[in-house]
């Protein structure tokens, strides 16, 4: 069974010629329709997230300013990110859709959920919207689960690093954040050495890959780097920042995946869930409408019916050594930080960590 939460953003939050546009939602919905799921598809309407839900991951001052900015008509947040008079309402409903999806899965106890919303969320930091994102949808859902005592895995296969999600959960030991992303590329964070804060060493996991990387490289990252960390972590829920801009047709980046690769990634990620009915995918990026439609169908088809994807998976691109290097760099960073902690524990002295960019340093 597939639970579809939303849609949000099919008409509102429209930046004109901007690539993050309402037509993306129609393309994703068309991808769902292509599966012809019949009674196996259950649609649940989004509801606005409550302020307390948002305050788990965003500063109240930022929420107030963003709402006020949108109510006044909006404008440009930065060179990439726009706000319109309908953006606040859309963003709050997008953030609430994940909560609705979780409730639906808790009731059904089976299947997976797809949260079809925009604006996307994974770049949004505690006190700042950026990279097309205003509120961090996947983080709102993960924080709600953590508040109920759950351990949450977030897999982010969007082509861009989810700096906002990483920042929000930097010191949260009950959230394991795993990201594969093109490097170098916006936002410039997501190095393997970024492993989480002193209270959560190892719960941030980054595998940057070079332009041209194919699906087999991302699967290698999942199998060789992510899987051992996930097994040790033991998640109760698996949330996916499900961007489709790593597709080879996407105009915003240069990875070389096909829809068939997203199907394979979905199967791998679903296997991380320890129980049925504990997998939620959140639409993030993906700016070629045909690729978005095909990738949506392939991803969800792999989860609810094992339908064959419209494109075959890809092999042979660069990045295999980058994955191995990321594993080494991550392991070294964890050992070094752990050694420092052990050394100062014996002295009963505090270890301080200089803030890193995008990890709360701006607050």
């Amino acid at each position: 069974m597939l639970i579809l939460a939303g849609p949000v953003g099919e008409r509102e939050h429209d930046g004109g010629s901007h690539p993050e546009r309402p037509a993306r939602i129609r393309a994703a919905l068309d991808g769902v329709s292509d599966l012809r799921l019949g009674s196996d598809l259950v649609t649940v309407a989004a509801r606005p997230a409550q302020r307390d839900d948002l305050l788990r991951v965003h500063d109240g001052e930022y929420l107030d300013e963003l709402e006020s900015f949108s109510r006044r008509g909006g404008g440009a947040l930065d060179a990439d990110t726009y706000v319109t008079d309908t953006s606040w309402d859309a963003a709050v409903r997008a953030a609430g859709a994940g909560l609705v999806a979780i409730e639906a899965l808790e009731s059904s106890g089976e299947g997976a959920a797809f949260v079809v919303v925009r604006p996307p969320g994974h770049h949004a930091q505690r006190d700042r919207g950026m990279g097309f994102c205003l509120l961090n949808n996947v983080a709102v859902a993960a924080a709600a689960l953590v508040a109920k005592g759950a351990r949450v895995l977030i897999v982010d296969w969007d082509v861009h690093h989810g700096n906002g999600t990483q920042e929000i959960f930097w010191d949260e030991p009950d959230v394991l954040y795993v990201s594969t992303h093109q490097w170098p590329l916006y936002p410039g964070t997501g190095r393997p050495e970024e492993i989480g804060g002193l209270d959560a060493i190892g719960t941030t996991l980054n595998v940057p890959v070079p332009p041209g990387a194919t699906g087999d490289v991302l699967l290698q990252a999942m199998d060789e780097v992510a899987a051992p960390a996930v097994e040790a972590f033991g998640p109760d829920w698996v949330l996916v920042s499900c961007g489709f801009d790593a597709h080879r047709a996407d105009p915003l980046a240069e990875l070389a995946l096909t829809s068939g690769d997203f199907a394979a990634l979905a199967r791998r990620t679903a296997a991380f869930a320890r129980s049925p009915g504990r997998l939620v995918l959140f639409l993030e990026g993906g700016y070629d409408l045909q690729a978005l439609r095909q990738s949506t169908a392939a991803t969800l088809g792999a989860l609810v019916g094992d339908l064959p994807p419209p494109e075959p998976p890809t092999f042979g691109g660069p990045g295999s050594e980058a994955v191995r290097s990321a594993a080494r760099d991550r392991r070294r960073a964890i050992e070094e930080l752990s050694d420092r902690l052990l050394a100062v524990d014996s002295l009963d002295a505090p270890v301080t960590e200089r803030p890193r960019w995008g990890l709360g340093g701006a607050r």
Partner: protein
Amino acid sequence: MRAPARIAVGYDGSPGSEAALRWAAALAGALEAAIKVVHAVGLLEHAGLASLSVHEDRARAIAAGAGVEPSRVEWCVLEGDPGSVLCRMAEGPDPPELIVVGTRRSLVHPGLLGSTSLGLVACAPVPVVVVPPADRAS
């Protein structure tokens, strides 16, 4: 403490970044320091979808006008958010000894520092100078 020999300045063609570049270039000229003009490439610019008024020639002209020898000016383009790019540079090999940025309107702190400036001040391992726009400075 000695005077900085390597200065990095964030530049995106905005009035705020031009003010920062002018200030940094004046300092570099006076100290005979090298200046690295850093432009961070965002999502839209990476895809060729943004026509930002960013010109290397203009940046070099501003530096030259402040008395910096052309050989001491380096134009540097990096992928990322301006804050992450400048922090990464400061943590990398051959880091700058001073970072200079301008200010943009901050949604959360209107009238105060922009979020890039605030984040840099918090995380950069070297001194950071935040230059106000010309109208506020006057």
